[in-house]
């Protein structure tokens, strides 16, 4: 009896150990990739911020509404760009960002542009309109891909296919904290109605052509920045999740070793008792 349970426990310890090895390896891979991703976030962030500030600044000072990018439209679906991961085992990373996107499109006519395999799978299986599945690999996207993606969206927006463009991504706050966000991209924020005299800006050659040339760049830059943030967030989340999994496996191994030793001791004690009883008789 004791022998069988001892063997069972030994098998379970062994399987826990191999699980632990896998989670440990995944954690280490995520850590080393995270370092690179973090550097990429840090180098792209100034661009991301300067771009956002400049374009919203220009839009706020703008008084010419001839560009389609500043006009508010009522009709047409909202284009939602959702950036999630390619793989699971990253804690709540994919779930959080997809849930936020889901809430954001609830009750609206929406067309989803998923980036990352998990986002594509989710929105496809839940019956949403998926614009394109060309960006299913979030990890392999370059800045060039982001600019061509932005260009395609701008073309669609100008043709009146979408009423608005929104971006859902995960912001990399720190290795331990990642927050999902919704960033409205188009139409550009309308200028506030303020009384003081506006500073006039010179647009070369004209406000409309400046907007038409800048907006695809702006979108591409923001999507690239959001992608960098999301990739780093995914790795951060995976690292934390795998660290927790490794710790849990260790705890379980400790617990099982204790049980194993107890069973072994029990078996020995029983054997001695049997021998002594036999000698007495």
């Amino acid at each position, binding site marked *: 009896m004791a022998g069988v349970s001892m063997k069972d426990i030994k098998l379970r310890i062994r399987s826990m150990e191999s699980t632990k090895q896998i989670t440990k390896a995944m954690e280490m891979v995520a850590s080393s990739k995270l370092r690179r991703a973090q550097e990429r976030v840090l180098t792209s962030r100034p661009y991301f911020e300067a*771009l956002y500030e*400049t374009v919203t600044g220009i839009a706020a000072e703008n008084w010419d509404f001839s560009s389609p990018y500043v006009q508010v439209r009522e009709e047409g679906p909202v284009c939602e760009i959702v950036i999630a991961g390619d793989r699971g085992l990253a804690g709540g990373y994919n779930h959080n960002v997809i849930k936020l996107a889901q809430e954001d499109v609830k009750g609206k006519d929406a067309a989803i542009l998923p980036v990352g395999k998990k986002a594509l799978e989710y929105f496809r299986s839940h019956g949403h309109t998926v614009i394109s599945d060309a960006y299913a690999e979030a990890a392999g996207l370059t800045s060039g891909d982001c600019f061509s993606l932005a260009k395609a969206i701008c073309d669609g927006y100008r043709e009146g296919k979408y009423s608005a463009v929104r971006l859902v991504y995960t912001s990399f706050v720190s290795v331990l904290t990642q927050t999902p966000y919704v960033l409205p991209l188009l139409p550009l924020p309308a200028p506030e109605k303020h009384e003081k005299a506006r500073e006039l800006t010179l647009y070369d050659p004209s406000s409309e052509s400046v907007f038409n040339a800048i907006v695809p760049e702006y979108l591409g830059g923001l999507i690239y920045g959001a992608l960098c943030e999301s990739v780093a967030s995914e790795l951060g989340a995976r690292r934390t999740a795998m660290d927790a999994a490794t710790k849990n496996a260790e705890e379980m191994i400790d617990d099982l070793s204790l049980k194993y030793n107890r069973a072994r001791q029990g078996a020995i004690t029983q054997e001695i008792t049997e021998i002594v009883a036999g000698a007495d008789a």
Partner: protein
Amino acid sequence: MNAYHLQIVTPDGLRFDGEAQSLLVRTTTGDVGIRARHANYVAPLGMGVARVTIDGQERRGACVGGMVSVLKGEVRLLATSFEWAEDIDVERAKAAEANARAILDHPDQHDAETLELAEGRLRRALIRQSAAEKPQ
């Protein structure tokens, strides 16, 4: 010459952040020079050699795409790519030029997209080479 605050940023990082006296860039409508106390100004960028004067010294760089903006005296050059002349790998640019020319020499063997890409590569390679050259 008076100096002003200039930032040059690209998706690959900050290329310059500091005081400059003048900036000469190629916009889609032509070359534009910016000095201190320029009026608010926004223009999309073309492809070309940018010249920046810092402490009386002229620095050159290959600047491709993006926009230049002057907002309340702050000048920002948001480029899709920007490389200082000393960071340019001339050999690589020459190899890229040769590759692109090889494709463009046989326009009937490639589709329109490949040709367009090759043309873009050729132009960037030429700009990099001219930016890396010592000014006469």
